[in-house]
């Protein structure tokens, strides 16, 4: 039962530079002129009202969307411009017909390494490992989806409303996991409506009345 924790050692140096970034969806401008910088160890909170473009910004950073203008410059990390990253969207990629163990093992084989049991423990779903995804509650599914982070050896995490449907315990486990990730020099960008409670998190405001980015303490 006492498998070692996943993930040790520090990530290669990482920095993110967003310059004059603009996003358009279906021909409609969502945001523009966004500038912010981040480096390994940082936590960025994306704030803004519904439709401000928080999810779109995460998808831009993940490389799933092309920018309408401006640039996203990653340095450090892998040899290509974009480092290895893990994107957790608002949908949980959990299959109803796989058990939690099989689901985690597949994610590990796909893009990570480490122990499935330790990953499950990191999100407090150890006892659910042999339960099929279709039988999990929304919160348990979300915990399983986030347990992927404990398997992925990726320096950049992009999380879209990760605490939705998590209980207090789950949110605390997520905060602890993000803390370990940052201590290793990892970067995390979180789109959120509630304050995440991450220490020294910087806020990037997206919004119709606050078009630029602003840094807070």
């Amino acid at each position: 039962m006492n498998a070692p924790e996943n993930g040790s050692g520090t990530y290669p140096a990482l920095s993110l530079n967003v310059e004059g970034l603009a996003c358009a969806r279906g021909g409609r401008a969502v945001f523009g002129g966004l500038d912010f910088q981040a480096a390994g160890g940082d936590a960025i909170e994306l704030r803004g009202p519904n439709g401000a473009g928080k999810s779109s910004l995460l998808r831009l950073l993940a490389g799933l969307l092309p920018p309408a203008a401006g640039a996203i410059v990653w340095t450090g990390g892998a040899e290509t411009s974009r480092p290895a990253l893990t994107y957790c969207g608002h949908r949980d990629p959990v299959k109803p017909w796989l058990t939690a163990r099989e689901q985690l093992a597949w994610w590990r084989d796909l893009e990570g390494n480490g122990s499935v049991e330790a990953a499950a423990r990191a999100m407090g779903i150890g006892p659910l490992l042999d339960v099929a995804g279709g039988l999990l509650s929304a919160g348990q599914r979300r915990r399983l989806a986030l347990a992927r982070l404990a398997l992925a050896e990726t320096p950049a995490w992009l999380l879209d409303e990760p605490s939705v449907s998590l209980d207090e315990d789950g949110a605390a486990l997520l905060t602890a996991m993000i803390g370990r990730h940052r201590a290793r020099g990892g970067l995390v960008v979180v789109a959120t409506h509630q304050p995440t409670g991450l220490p020294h998190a910087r806020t990037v405001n997206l919004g119709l009345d606050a078009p630029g980015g602003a840094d807070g303490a």
Partner: protein
Amino acid sequence: MRPYLATFRRDLRFAVRHGADTAVVLAFFVVAVVLFPLGIGPAAETLAVIAPGVVWVAALLATLLSLDRLFAADFEDGTVDLFLTGRTSLLLVVLAKCAAHWLTTGLPLIVLSPVLAAMLHLPAAGYLMLALGLLLGTPVLTLLGAVGAALVLGARRGGVLIAILVLPLYIPVLIFGVLSVDAVIHAADPWPHILLLGAALLAGLVIAPPAAVLALRSAAE
């Protein structure tokens, strides 16, 4: 290789746990073929003439029926985003998914085909060529179908759209598949047709996965 083998195994596991999905495709194949003797009459000589074409057309339509499960579920739950943002080669992921799809759709169709051919009074000389043609042709159906399945992601009434997109592309496979059986029944040389099917398979292996990857990328935008 580990990510691709794992994806292949995962899709096989789906086919085993949702055996009904495969069974529906095979049942459709059988029922579609059985309708022809009922509609045309039991005359053995008539049925023998149309047998290769009927089996091939039914195999085409049965494959079509199975294509929506190739990417649709992975797209809806965000697994495609995971493929696109990961470090794994999406090209090989698509190939692994196609391999699993063929193994759970194309191969069972080939196994069933001699039974259906016998029911349609296909001359015994044609059985082996029918199976060989299907062996080369059904992977092409899967590969071309993967492009169609990726293109219609996010579209309304994708099932109808995919038929319109993919069936015209299936025509060459149908023609060479049927011609090879006809040739061997009439003691002609079937090998040019078989070689063309093989060429179609090689072309499909090269062209279809990159096209499906492009379609997946644009669907995720």
